[in-house]
């Protein structure tokens, strides 16, 4: 048994580190650290995407034929870990991780040619049309209708929790093309141009004032048949492919551990009576407990990685890492608010909080970020399958209950 990377992997790690040291601008690191919400804004995200694309490291989840890197699971993990430690902006999952692999796998040659490279260049930004008001993650109850009309579909319905719809050029959308078959069978996977009449975007503002998600109304919107992925009625299958593709190795712990280091550093300079907060035994024990949870998660992620590296399926352990990482994220963000005492109560709604024109903090910059980060992180245990749903999955698939 060992927990060590191979020599080749260590060399790869060094290569990634050197690349990040040389090519990741401080401005982007500051942008990442100055973003209290889950997704970075395109001004930051796209610049980082261009740098990675130039290096050929952008589409590392894609097949090699489609421009992927051919990395092993361990290399992917190393890349993500080093990016997290270097405060690299998070990459938009919508085009790169979700629809890209779908088009690469199910798309026609023409579709691949038209869409894939524009994802990599950032010319096209994507959003996801899955959730609907009232349906949550229950896809079988999907209500959006697409009616065939010659070489196009006329789509009517509404999608919700649509991340960055206000920036998106395209939506990949599940719509019901046949209402008369059983619920899962009548769904198709359509690509919809967002820049057309009938698409209305209503911003949904988060508790901290951030605008990340939207409700999207589709009123007699056109989707060309040539922009349908796969066959009519194949949407359910493709949706499952996409979800499974979203899984695989998890790499949440490195960022969580880095945030805990940061928090320990901040506690060491927070005044607390005659001393500093870090001397408070209650605080330091709580911090240590979170660190223990994060270290266990790191090892759990490595155990899953070792399974993947041996070609075994990671299985529902991804529900476990999602569950642990989400709760941990929230507990860290809560303790961070507490760290700053009364300064932790400030909440500015101006954005962005990085760059020269960002508002002056009360106390220090991290204090300004604490409350919005905490408020936004309540989303972690809700989206992408709530904690309750993850536990249902584990109980059913792992425990057989």
């Amino acid at each position, binding site marked *: 048994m060992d927990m060590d990377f191979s020599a080749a992997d260590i060399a790869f790690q060094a290569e990634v580190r050197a690349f990040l040291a040389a090519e990741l601008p401080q401005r982007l690191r500051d942008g990442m650290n100055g973003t209290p919400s889950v997704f970075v804004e395109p001004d930051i995200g796209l610049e980082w995407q261009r740098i990675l694309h130039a290096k050929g490291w952008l589409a590392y989840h894609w097949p090699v034929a489609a421009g992927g890197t051919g990395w092993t699971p361990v290399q992917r993990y190393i890349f993500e870990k080093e990016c997290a430690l270097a405060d690299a902006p998070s990459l938009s999952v919508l085009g790169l991780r979700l629809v890209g692999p779908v088009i690469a796998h199910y798309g026609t040659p023409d579709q691949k040619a038209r869409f894939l490279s524009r994802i990599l260049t950032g010319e096209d930004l994507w959003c996801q049309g899955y959730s609907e008001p009232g349906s949550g993650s229950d896809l079988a109850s999907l209500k959006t209708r697409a009616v065939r009309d010659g070489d196009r579909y006329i789509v009517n319905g509404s999608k919700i929790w649509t991340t960055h719809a206000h920036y998106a050029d395209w939506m990949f959308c599940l719509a019901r093309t046949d209402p008369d078959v059983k619920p899962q069978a009548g769904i198709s996977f359509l690509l919809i141009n967002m820049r057309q009449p009938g698409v209305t975007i209503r911003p949904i503002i988060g508790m901290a004032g951030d605008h990340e998600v939207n409700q999207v109304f589709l009123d007699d919107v056109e989707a060309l048949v040539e922009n349908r992925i796969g066959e009519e009625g194949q949407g359910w299958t493709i949706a499952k492919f996409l979800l499974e593709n979203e899984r695989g190795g998890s790499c949440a712990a490195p960022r969580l551990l880095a945030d805990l280091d940061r928090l320990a550093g901040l506690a060491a300079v927070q005044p607390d009576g005659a001393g500093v907060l870090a001397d408070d035994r209650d605080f330091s024990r709580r911090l240590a407990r979170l660190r223990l949870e994060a270290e266990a998660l790191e090892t759990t992620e490595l155990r899953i990685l070792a399974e993947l590296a041996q070609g075994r399926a990671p299985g529902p352990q991804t529900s476990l890492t999602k569950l642990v990482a989400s709760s941990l994220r929230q507990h860290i963000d809560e303790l961070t608010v507490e760290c700053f005492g009364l*300064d932790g109560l*400030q*909440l500015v*709604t101006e954005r962005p909080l990085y760059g020269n024109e960002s508002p002056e903090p*009360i106390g220090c910059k991290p204090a300004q970020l604490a409350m919005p980060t905490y408020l*936004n992180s*309540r989303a972690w245990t809700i989206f992408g399958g709530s904690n*309750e749903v993850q536990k249902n999955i584990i109980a059913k698939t792992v425990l057989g209950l």
Partner: protein
Amino acid sequence: MNFDPGEDQALLKTAVERFVADTYGAAPVETRRMAQAGAAGFGAAHWARLAETGLLGLAVSASGGGLGGGRVEVAVTMEAIGHGLVAEPLLEAAIIPGMLLDAASHAAQQSTVLEGLVAGASIVVLAHAERAARFDLDHVDGAAEASGTDVAIHAGKTAVLVGGGADWLIVSARDASGVTGFWLVPAAAPGVDRRPYRLADGSLAAEVTLRGVVVPAGNRLAVDTAHFTAVIAMARLAACAEMLGLMTRLFETTLDYVKTRRQFGQPLGSFQVIQHRMTDAYVLIEQARSHLLRAALAPDARFARAAAGAKAFIADAAITVAHTAVQMHGGMGITDELLVGHALKRIRVLALVFGDAGSALDDYARAA
């Protein structure tokens, strides 16, 4: 032994609830948003109406022009204020400064300011917290230097609640003997540097730096340590009552939601895990109510300790209930559109001011 409100208390409750129904009743979130867009961070018209009903003088003695309400009256009022999601700072700009000025109302100017406060004409707030103090309420580095019949105050105050739009500040500082005193300072006085900022609950706080601000020595309030302790205890009680109102509202709205919202073909509330989580919240709220009653009805000698204990318990309980409400509401819970998020944010502020749960717990344990 009787936990039902008395006749006068019931009338008071009705009056506050009428205010809430008339103002925040139909659209609490929108009303709150609009009120907070006002210059002082709350609704001027609402404030005027609170003055009319006499509520700004709730904790001011009758001789001081107030209602002379005691702990029970404060608790009854603030619970209804919390339940209504009211943005107007009854705690910060009426109860606390009212009690501080009331004790000192022998001085002419202070009486005038208190009259203005009760009438809704002046906004008066306490400027006490300092960054280095963290949650230690006894820690004051600000200094007041005597200079003839005046004093010159040097102090750096943070998280001055509702300080962004205040007309008067009650500033704590140490006098030449090292004793902490409280001075009434016009917010517009030369040397007062005020930087307003928003707190999580949308209110307009301020950082205030006083660089040799000169006020007459007579502006010192007749507030000693014991009186300040009593004011803090009352502030804690009021914060607890407001949190209890918020928790109750969160619980009601969430219970309603899980009964009507359907998932996977059945109401959310039919899932046992949801049922038990709602039960946990119910138990916390009942226990929180018991703590509030305990503090409100404690003998005077035990009030400060009971208020510290209530604050420690209710601060944690309220955050837990608010997190439950957010989680149960799913995606909608994390938006700014429902009252859920607004209640969470107000609770976050109330939980931390006048000592966070941990420091209140230490106060409570020390007083045992």
